[in-house]
């Protein structure tokens, strides 16, 4: 029982990342009808927002500290980050320590801008082109984005730690009445899950309970009619693209403490997220979230030793296997709408 709960928990954080990226992908597909292969790159850019912020916060000036001396008795030069000299010792260090959560604030506008630029500059011209062309041009764009990031940050993963407060693990088993040390779970993964649940909730609430969201949903159902009613649906869809980009970006920001980001992390997630979207059903928001968590949890179950001895190698292929079975038996995916790319 405790092993099962542990695997579910392990699957949740990866599942949340899949769900967030897949939500953005399917949102773009549902609104604009565009298959965006550059969405993984947006995830990666989000992660590098966090890296950039932590680098910026760590910019320092060299000050001669008269109170400390080296072994010859000369005053020592110390590096003092600007934030520390501006806000004082404790507040400054706290800001540096909290760079990843702070990056959320700066990632949202950055990702919005990237999203708008991408939609207006490129995607707009591909509404009417075949899906194959859309895949190809966004695939090219993803390569370009990756290479730009690589040119600035190099090819190696850059560790970006979580705040000290959330480092380490806690005993989840003890909290729900199991013996000690049965279910140990890192804090940050729990936070990642809660954060993604929050974002997912916000996006759904935005679409469900605001006028703007209502118009967007109407546009997803029948774009032409909404346009004929005198509503500038294109502008709203562009905003939705920006929103989808920032959701992917936020997923990336919060993922940095779990896995140090490198320039091709997006591609690794993209392939899986596409599988998630297809399993959930193209254009279905609920399906993407459901499939994201489902596949994340399945993946962690498949990597249990008991399962691996029964079916060797299953942990490597489970996601693809599920995708193949779903695609062949339920052409629409789990929760796909009728008539959306059923061919």
């Amino acid at each position, binding site marked *: 029982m405790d092993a099962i709960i542990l695997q579910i928990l392990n699957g949740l954080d990866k599942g949340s990342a899949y769900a967030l990226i897949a939500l953005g992908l399917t949102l773009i597909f549902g609104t604009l009808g565009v298959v965006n292969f550059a969405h993984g790159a947006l995830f990666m850019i989000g992660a590098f927002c966090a890296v950039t912020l932590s680098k910026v916060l760590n910019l320092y000036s060299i000050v001669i500290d008269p109170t400390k001396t080296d072994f010859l008795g000369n005053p020592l030069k110390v590096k003092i980050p600007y934030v520390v000299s501006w806000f004082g010792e404790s507040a400054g260090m706290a800001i540096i320590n909290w760079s990843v959560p702070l990056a959320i604030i700066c990632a949202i506008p950055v990702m919005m801008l990237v999203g708008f630029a991408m939609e207006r500059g490129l995607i707009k011209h591909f509404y009417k082109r075949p899906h194959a062309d859309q*895949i190809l041009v966004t695939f090219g764009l993803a390569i370009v984005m990756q290479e730009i990031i690589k040119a600035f940050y190099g090819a190696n993963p850059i560790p970006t730690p979580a705040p000290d407060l959330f480092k380490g693990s806690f005993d989840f088993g003890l909290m729900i009445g199991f013996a000690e040390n049965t279910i140990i779970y890192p804090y940050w993964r729990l936070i990642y899950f809660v954060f993604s649940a929050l974002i997912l909730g916000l996006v759904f609430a935005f679409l469900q309970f605001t006028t703007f969201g209502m118009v967007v949903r109407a546009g997803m159902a029948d774009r032409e009619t909404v346009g004929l009613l005198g509503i500038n649906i294109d502008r709203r869809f562009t905003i939705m693209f920006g929103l989808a980009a920032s959701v992917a970006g936020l997923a990336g920001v919060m993922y940095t403490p779990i896995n140090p980001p490198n320039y091709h992390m997006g591609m690794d997630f993209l392939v899986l997220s596409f599988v998630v979207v*297809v399993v959930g059903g193209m254009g279905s928001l609920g399906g993407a979230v459901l499939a994201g968590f489902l596949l994340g949890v399945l993946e962690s179950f498949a990597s249990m030793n008991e399962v691996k001895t029964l079916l060797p190698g299953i942990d490597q292929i489970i996601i693809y296997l599920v995708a*193949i079975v779903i695609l062949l038996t339920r052409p629409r995916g789990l929760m796909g709408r009728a008539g959306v790319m059923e061919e």
Partner: protein
Amino acid sequence: MFNKLDSNDRYMMIFFIIMVLAGPIILAPFGAGYPDLLQRFAIFGLFAIGFNILFGLTGYLSFGHAAFLGVGSYSAVWMFKLLTMNVIPALFLSVAVAGVFALAIGYISLRRSGIYFSILTLAFAQMSYNLAYSVLTPITNGETGLQLTLDDPRILDGANATGDIPSTNLFGLTMNSTYKAELLGMTFQFNVGFYFCAIILILGFYTALKIFRSPFGLMLRAIKTNQTRLNYTGLNSRPYTLAAFVISGMYAGMAGGLMAITDPLAGAERMQWTASGEVVLMTILGGAGTLLGPVLGAGFIKYFENIFSKINDNVLHAWFSFMPESIENLLVGVLHFFVGKGWHLTLGIVFMLVVIFMPGGLVEGGNRIYKSLRRRFGNADETQAAE
């Protein structure tokens, strides 16, 4: 070989044969005349030609063709290990095994079309890649890659006298032997392995040409144009797409076999989806659905991968040294991002530009230039550009 083709195709075929066979001479001035790169041109050209039979004719975008390449490589290396270092059995086995794989994967994947087909092929390729890395290690030798060893049985070859790992050969003609010729201060290298690949490439090109011109090829084009209408006329398109899939899979297997022939080892990274993406890039860049396009695209990408990536800041400084220093430094600073390690950036940008402005690829670009030139000079030349 030629009397069954109409005159345009005959010219194209002759042109193609001459260009390929004279490759070591033509490419030497461009710094690409060394055997390793020439072999790559031929191998990836073959791979792209095969991919084009599927994507260019039927419009089914497969993102998993590298799996067949990898399978082909593994089978060829196993043939070298178990039977003989002669290349012919290895090549046959790699084509056959890749064909069987393609039949199985194609049978399942082709039940869906569009993006679902792409995802299905991608899923199968990633599965093969992951399995090759983990569980199938006894067959694939995992991360190390499958290599030849001294104590391999090699039943037909008899005892190994020299104590070295033997090299691949065609009835005694070793693949890595090179004949060098000096002329006009340049070295021309005529490599046996390259010419073997070149002959296979020419045969592959000829087969593709025949498929393009055959009723079967027309049927595949009809599938791309309007599959629904084709179904309404009472035709079942599945056997045709499956045949195209298997053929292109066999081409990929052959390319994989040739890779193992020129360099007898096989690794799982050949099956990764980025490798599948590469052949897509090649085909689109050159021109999907055209005959010469994929070969051009493959040559273009492999050339730039090898030549562009070797240009570093020192080379750039040498190029621009005639300019004032400030401009020189500025130019080098800007170009630094596009060459050397950053050549993928150039590739991505070129690829995007091609998809946006020239969906027909380099071949379409060439045709446009040719037409505008003809209009300008009013030349009543009747010959049309290839395809």
